[in-house]
């Protein structure tokens, strides 16, 4: 492993930032907050054009065969841009399930289409507040899924989903096409996440793994998606850090830049600390891919990144004063995204417990 990025990786980071700076429009994103069911097609087309959809897919299936480090760098850029579509992280989770669990023809049927962006995949593990319910209510029998998965990220637009369901011999991970599935939109404070309750009614599905194998695969998917999300959170937090810094340098009060007041100055310095610690954890976790330390490193990254992003949103708005709470200033794009990412795939409490369980060797 290495935590120093090579030239190729540095190039990915710069290029993804550059292209998003050029193409993402704040006004367009503001327009996506209130309506339900819309997402930023310009961003998604860019993701496809840039090959981000193919990034982590094996070359044998038309992908670039790269890993978490590269995907993380892209996620950091999308986080900074509060990207208007949630498919990258979810898609990666699904891809991992297909790569590790699917038989040749199933993998061949989906992976190339996911690589080109023709198809969009998501992941549906949680039920209620359980990120990975021991006894999922959604059931699998005779090649069919039945039951409801609540507030699935990207659920309104995805073509297929990897679903955590209860089979005859314990839980399974199954891949289902969503064409016939009932989708109830969840009106959210961050609607471009495309949350939907997915109602499976004897929906045909193919098993990817069952029993212990399914549980291990699901845990691996969770940890990997957590690392991607952590990078996205770091990108958002860092963007807010710079916004706050620049505002503190230009905005004046009582005859001097507000950045000269220690209440503002130290708040921004503390943010810097949170961001750097979270970034270091995220990079470290990505570099740990496949090692025994991965689960713990993923939890470290997810916890520090969630804390950094929520805090950055809170503090950056506060530093801006009145202008910071206006719709048009758009800081609430980050505020909303900080919350939605904090809640998706396990809140802080979940990841704290996940970390401690792994630390003291009581991992589920």
């Amino acid at each position, binding site marked *: 492993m290495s935590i120093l990025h090579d030239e190729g990786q540095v190039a990915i980071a710069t290029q993804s930032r550059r292209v998003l700076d050029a193409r993402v429009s704040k006004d367009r994103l503001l327009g996506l907050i209130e309506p339900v069911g819309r997402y930023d097609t310009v961003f998604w087309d860019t993701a496809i054009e840039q090959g981000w959809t193919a990034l982590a897919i094996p070359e044998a299936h038309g992908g670039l065969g790269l890993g978490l480090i590269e995907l993380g760098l892209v996620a950091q850029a999308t986080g900074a841009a509060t990207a208007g579509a949630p498919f990258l992280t979810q898609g990666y989770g699904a891809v991992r399930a297909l790569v590790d669990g699917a038989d040749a023809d199933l993998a061949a049927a989906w992976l190339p289409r996911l690589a080109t962006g023709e198809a969009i995949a998501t992941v549906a593990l949680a039920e209620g*507040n359980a990120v990975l319910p021991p006894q999922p209510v959604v059931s699998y029998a005779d090649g069919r899924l039945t039951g409801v998965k609540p507030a699935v990220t990207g659920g309104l637009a995805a073509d297929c989903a990897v679903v955590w369901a209860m089979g005859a011999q314990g839980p399974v991970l199954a891949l289902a096409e969503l064409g016939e599935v009932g989708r109830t939109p969840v009106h959210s*404070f961050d609607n471009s996440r495309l949350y939907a309750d997915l109602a499976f009614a004897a929906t045909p599905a193919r098993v990817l793994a069952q029993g212990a194998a399914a549980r291990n695969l699901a845990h691996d998917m969770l940890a990997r998606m957590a690392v991607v999300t952590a990078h996205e959170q770091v990108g958002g937090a860092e963007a807010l850090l710079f916004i706050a810094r620049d505002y503190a340098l230009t905005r004046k009060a*009582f005859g001097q830049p507000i950045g000269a007041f220690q209440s503002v100055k130290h708040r921004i310095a503390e943010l810097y600390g949170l961001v750097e610690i979270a970034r270091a954890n995220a990079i470290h976790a990505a570099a740990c891919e496949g090692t025994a330390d991965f689960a713990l490193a993923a939890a470290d990254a997810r916890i520090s990144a969630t804390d950094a992003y929520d805090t950055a949103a809170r503090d950056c708005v506060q530093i801006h004063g009145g202008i*910071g*709470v*206006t719709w048009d200033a758009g800081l*609430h794009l980050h505020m909303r995204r900080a919350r939605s990412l904090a*809640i998706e795939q396990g809140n802080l409490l979940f990841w704290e417990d996940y970390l401690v369980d792994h630390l003291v060797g009581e991992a589920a």
Partner: protein
Amino acid sequence: MTTIASDIAIDSWRDRSRQWLHSVASDFARPARAGLAVEADLALGRRYLAARYDAGFAGINWPQDYGGQGLSHLHKLVFEEEEMALGMPSGYFGISLGMPVPILMRHGQDRAFVKERVTRALRGEEIWCQLFSEPAGGSDLAGLRTRAEVDGNGWRMNGQKLWTSWAQYCDYGVIVVRTDPTVPKHKGLTYFWVDMKAPGVTVRPIKLAGGDSHVNEVFFDDVRLEDSQRMSPVGGGFGVAMTTLMIERYIATDSGGFGPHLDLFVQTARDTDYNGRPAILDGRVRSAIARNHAMRAGLDAITTRAMRMMQAGMEPGPEGSLNKLVAVRSRQRLSELALDLMGPAGLAFDAHAHAKEDWAASWINAPTGRIAGGADEMLLNTIAERILGLPQDHRPDKGVPFNQIPG
């Protein structure tokens, strides 16, 4: 508030208030307002204020010859407590009757005019706003740029105000403007009232992060002010404005930080499962409940003590200024935690929900609460300087004529 209940006079007053409020609850209270758009809700509010006026619960602590009841500040607080409990639509008039109209009563020149305005304001027929903040001003009141120049026997006003609540529905406003840019910042200000329907006044609503638009930009383009509209000595506007802000800080007190009651959090924590058992059994959740309960109980005890002192004719201590600072900040964190606990359900959002009854609404609007009516940092400065006697921050602009301060 047991301490108040122990006071007979107040006690019976509370009963009378509650009695009347419940008699009109079906027309005006929270259920009757559910789902109403702002305009419809405001119209309902106007009818409510008229009814309140006729029932003898308007201007409770105002002199009777202004249509008030001539009772104590405590009587007012008690009534408002009961009123808030039922969720009556009085919010639109809170600022109007809280700050501008009392100032008008105290400083208005034409008494007949004043009397008519006060009555109409009490009946909800007219609404007053307060035009202080400006784009460049922020928390710095003395840095105002809107100016009024002498124009014959009156004044001509030009400039822009910001963050004016409900201005789009207001008939009049009180305003602080710069009448002399050649003297140090806070010395060149004068206080007027202004007709919001006058030619040259343009109101543009500002959409806030939460999606609503109750605050406005207000533009003044050669707006004529009679000298009779002046409510302070020329150059003496800063003092009057400060009293207004003090009133504001004192009126704004809710240990819940204008977010949901802690009971709602307890309910959320009991109804939500975490790790297969009610979240309220988790130490992190219990800690949050306990810390917030202790914090709110302390703030309530401070308020109660202040009331008792006012009752006893004493001056309450300065610790009242803690309320907004501590309560709103905590509400922000508690709302985030509530959303976390709700998990996927916490992702849902209802644009019409009230911040006092819904965690997402409370969370998204919390930052506004931490900034409006004195940002946290300003409140900390006030506490440090006025209460603890710590030195003022360094202020390069101090004593410099306003027109010589580098933009």
